[in-house]
């Protein structure tokens, strides 16, 4: 099992995968032209032919039979080509001590404050592959890539988690807010957003702050709440140091979680080690290992034994990484948890 950059030859497999993900997966719509365009851009990004503003690092998870079973991505920067909007959940205080009045009213402030930060996005793992360390490899592999190439990214890494919605895909937050300004249902807006119209839609929203007390109770209740389907992804990122600092999605109210790149566990704790081939013991811990290459990037999870500045792994793992003994790797122990990232 490896994570590697997407290639044009992956397109048919990718299309099948994206179709399985369904319409809620708006950043990778099941549209061949758009998908092909994105794959070509990703290849240029891995070849360092694009500016950070346009960099879209699209990875696939491939099993040993060369089947694509998952996808995940990293955006070099958000908001540098078109505005990136969030609400920040702030506070308005209405106070008149003489009258015993002291009201705290959470208030949504439209902002572009995350402009220039890097984003984790477009993660999907095939349903029948959600076991073992697959989810962690697909999600955290990206972070090890960031650890190796920090100059390609911003100061912070963010991830927008899908907000709460009912089984029909209706979002109470949207129904109480966005709908009034667009007169379209959430799935339609979400679809337009996936087609790259998100900034246009955002520009229809009111610029003035909004008092949450004027939203429906259902909408207030889902502010900053992730969709239950994203809980596993959320847990993985939380254990990496990601936290919700008050930014939410302007459409569905889902949380934006963030972490300064230098303090992300995988980035902070990763080590440059020399690859050595051998037999790790049966109890050897799992390591997330990167071959330190950009265009020919390979990342995998395997048992490893650290000896001084060397990491002892088996021959097959070295082969997966396309490395020889004596090559340098970047590696970090894989957190010992069973969460499966399935969508983020």
């Amino acid at each position: 099992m490896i994570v590697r950059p997407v290639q044009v030859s992956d397109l048919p497999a990718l299309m099948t995968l994206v179709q399985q993900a369904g319409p809620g997966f708006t950043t990778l719509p099941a549209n061949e032209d758009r998908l092909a365009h994105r794959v070509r851009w990703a290849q240029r990004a891995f070849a360092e032919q694009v500016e950070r503003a346009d960099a879209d690092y699209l990875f696939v998870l491939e099993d040993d039979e060369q089947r694509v079973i998952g996808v995940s991505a990293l955006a070099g920067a958000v908001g540098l080509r078109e505005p990136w909007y969030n609400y920040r959940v702030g506070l308005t205080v209405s106070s008149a001590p003489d009258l015993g009045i002291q009201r705290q009213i959470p208030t949504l402030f439209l902002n572009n404050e995350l402009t220039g930060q890097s984003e984790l996005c477009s993660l999907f793992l095939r349903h029948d592959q959600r076991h073992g360390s697959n989810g962690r490899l697909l999600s955290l592999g990206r972070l090890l890539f960031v650890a190796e190439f920090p100059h390609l990214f911003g100061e912070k890494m963010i991830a927008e988690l899908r907000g709460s919605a009912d089984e029909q895909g209706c979002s109470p937050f949207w129904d109480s807010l966005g709908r009034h300004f667009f007169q379209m249902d959430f799935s339609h807006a979400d679809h337009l957003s996936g087609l790259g119209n998100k900034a246009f839609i955002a520009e229809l929203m009111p610029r003035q702050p909004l008092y949450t007390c004027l939203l429906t109770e259902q909408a207030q209740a889902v502010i900053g709440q992730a969709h239950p389907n994203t809980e596993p992804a959320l847990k993985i990122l939380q254990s990496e140091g990601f936290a919700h600092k008050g930014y939410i999605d302007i459409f569905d109210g889902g949380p934006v979680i963030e972490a300064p790149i230098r303090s992300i566990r995988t980035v902070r704790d990763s080590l440059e080690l020399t690859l050595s081939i051998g037999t790790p013991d049966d109890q050897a811990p799992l390591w997330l290992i990167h071959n330190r290459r950009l265009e020919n990037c390979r990342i995998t999870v395997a048992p490893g034994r650290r000896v001084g500045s060397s990491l002892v792994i088996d021959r097959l793992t070295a082969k997966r990484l396309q490395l020889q003994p004596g090559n340098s790797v970047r590696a970090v122990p894989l957190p010992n948890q069973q969460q499966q990232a399935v969508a983020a």
Partner: protein
Amino acid sequence: MLVLRPVEPNDLPQLQQLARDSLVGVTSLPDDSERLSEKIAASCASFDSDVAAQGPENYFFVLEDLDTRRLVGCSEILATAGFNEPFYSLRNRHFTSASRELNIEHGVPALSLCHDLSGHTLLRGFHIDAALVRTPFSELLSRARLLFIAAHAPRFAEAVITEIVGYSDEQGHSPFWDALGKHFFDLPYVEAERLCGLQSRTFLAELMPQYPIYVPMLPQAAQDCIGRIHPDGQEAFDILEREGFETNSYIDLFDAGPTLYARTANIRSIALSQTAKVQEEPLIDARGRYLVSNDALHGFRAVVAELDFQPGQPLALDPALCAALNVRAGGTIRVIAL
């Protein structure tokens, strides 16, 4: 006979009874003797003042039954809204959402706190005894203010406004207040209006939302209150609407009652009222019902009378009317058909 005159210090006890009976939303009439005596004193000073231009004056009138010495109504003119403290309203305007790329454009009404009505003359504090509702005397109580403005135009602005009490139910619940103001105060509507009367209304307004409120985000019951009149405020509205006042995009920030607006010079009782010289003699043949006022300042009086009025001719008034209006033969009075 019922006569409208400026309030006097010894009117306080009766005035307080009127205040007690008045509609909750008439916040310029607090049921509080201290506040009322301040208002009386301020009014006396206003009538006595020798001003050449509009300022902070507040002219407070009462309607008195000369036979019983009972006060049966009151009304006020604030020369300048927002003179001493900001005058707040909610402006109801469309916020336009437009995207050329998506070919979408539509407007969303939004309420914004504003001071746009500052500087206008404000009619307020209208309250009449329930027995006199929809009689010529409520016309007198409301419109005599306009005759006063006609007689003393330099003391007033070029536009006159009034806020009509908005809808609340019989239990005193205002759906608009419950949807908006309550979030910022955590007080029932009645209590908020009471505080407005006692404390400064501005003080409370400053606790209100400073950012626009998008109307579709309010519950339907609250949306339905926008511009809706309290049943007991309907007459005050109707009288001024007949005078040429119109509603506009401004509403009250507590109960969403409508604001009425008119250019002073276009108000019917101001544009069409005429002055005449008094002839003190018995009335022979009344031809119509009129509102009649003298053009005095602190001696201002106004009554409803049956008259034989011919434009440009001296007007015959019987001695009782002359006494009520405090005029003599040769004096000037102002007349407008009821």
